[in-house]
């Protein structure tokens, strides 16, 4: 082939492919609520998760309390991350967490007395919840205040989600109701939220007993893992 009848090759400039990375906010949210859920993935804080999730009201009460503790502690830890000495950071985090929990306990005692009574020891036990100190250590101590506060919100929402799902499952099977006693948390107007799903003389007692919590959690974990597996398969 002579030089003349060669087809001139156009120089095509290949533009670098822009990989659209999800925003930090979206990543934090999906990590906290789903892909790195404190209860359903890391399996942290199982004691309160199993103990108080026999109905949605208790689950919501503890979930909201944990959510506020996570937001508060993450914000405070992040605010002082540069001045907290590395060697004594853990006792400092524990004091911050204990302060937040005690403050929330007093507020619940004042404004949600019935829920405060039914949750009992599980409110102060938030102090020992590994999710709270885990996020302080792994995230809040290394990131900005806004990101840390949002991480606390997302992680707390993940815990709240886990509690409510398990609480709803056990309440439906055990009592045949949903949102029973929600007025204890939100006032008289929430009485109308109660739904009678299964008209049972006596529900599946096993569901609201402690063994039912373990089996219920097993089912929730299986469903979550199934959803994740299907998502992976699609990709």
């Amino acid at each position, binding site marked *: 082939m002579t030089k003349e009848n060669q087809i001139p090759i156009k120089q095509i400039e290949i533009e670098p492919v822009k990989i659209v990375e999800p925003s930090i906010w979206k990543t934090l949210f999906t990590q906290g609520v789903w892909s790195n859920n404190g209860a359903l993935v890391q399996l942290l804080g199982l004691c309160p998760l199993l103990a108080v999730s026999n109905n949605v009201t208790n689950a919501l009460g503890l979930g909201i309390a944990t959510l506020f503790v996570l937001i508060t502690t993450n914000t405070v830890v992040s605010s002082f991350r540069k001045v907290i000495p590395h060697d004594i950071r853990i006792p400092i985090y524990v004091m911050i967490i204990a302060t937040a929990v005690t403050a929330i306990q007093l507020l619940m*005692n004042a404004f949600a007395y019935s829920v405060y009574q039914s949750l009992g020891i599980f409110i102060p036990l938030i102090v020992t919840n590994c999710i709270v100190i885990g996020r302080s250590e792994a995230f809040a101590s290394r990131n900005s205040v806004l990101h840390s506060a949002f991480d606390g919100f997302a992680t707390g929402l993940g815990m709240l989600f886990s509690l409510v799902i398990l609480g709803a499952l056990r309440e439906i099977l055990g009592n045949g109701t949903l949102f029973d006693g929600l007025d204890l948390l939100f006032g008289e107007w929430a009485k109308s939220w109660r739904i009678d799903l299964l008209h049972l003389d006596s529900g599946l007692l096993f569901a609201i007993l402690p063994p039912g919590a373990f089996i219920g959690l097993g089912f929730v974990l299986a469903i979550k893992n199934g959803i994740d597996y299907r998502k992976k398969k699609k990709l």
Partner: protein
Amino acid sequence: MKASVITTRYALILGAIALICTAILVGVYLLTRGTINDVVEKQQRSLLLEVVPQAHFDNDFLATCKIIDLPEAPFLNKIYIAKKADNLTAYAIQATAPDGYSGNIVLLIGITPVGTILGVRTLEHQETPGLGDKIEIRISDWVTQFTGILFNEETESSWKVKKDGGQFDQFTGATITPRAVVNNVRQSAKWTVTELKQHPEIINSFVNCG
């Protein structure tokens, strides 16, 4: 830097943080104290009204609370005295049944001086959800069967659950919990119509609550 200096510095930092945390909590406590007291008092008043209806008293019922400390009646905790036009009309007795299936059951019992039960409510328990927790009014109306029943020495033998030959229903699959409650209400009623009726001055020896 010397280890002792570092240790002292860290100790001071931890101490300072502990003081700050304490100060914050003192602030929150002072802000919520009034509300907490109001909420607790409101709940106590509403509970007392459930066992001794308003028609039975015109005094400050809650303020009459006295702590019962009797070695011969360890199941009794507190007593409230209802009066109408300065006449004794009823008592509200807080008592503990120690023989529940999962431990103590704390009850509030409204009773007239002659032994008529005005109402019974469960204050605290650790009974099995779905079985023993039917002693709670929000779950079942089982405790309302005591209302209006007279206790005296002639009727004492019927103050048992049906399984034991008495007049009170038990729960399906759970007899221990209702038996404990019935026994405690019977003991409290018996103490009221015998000891308290014969020696009403005994109340003056009891210490005021709180």
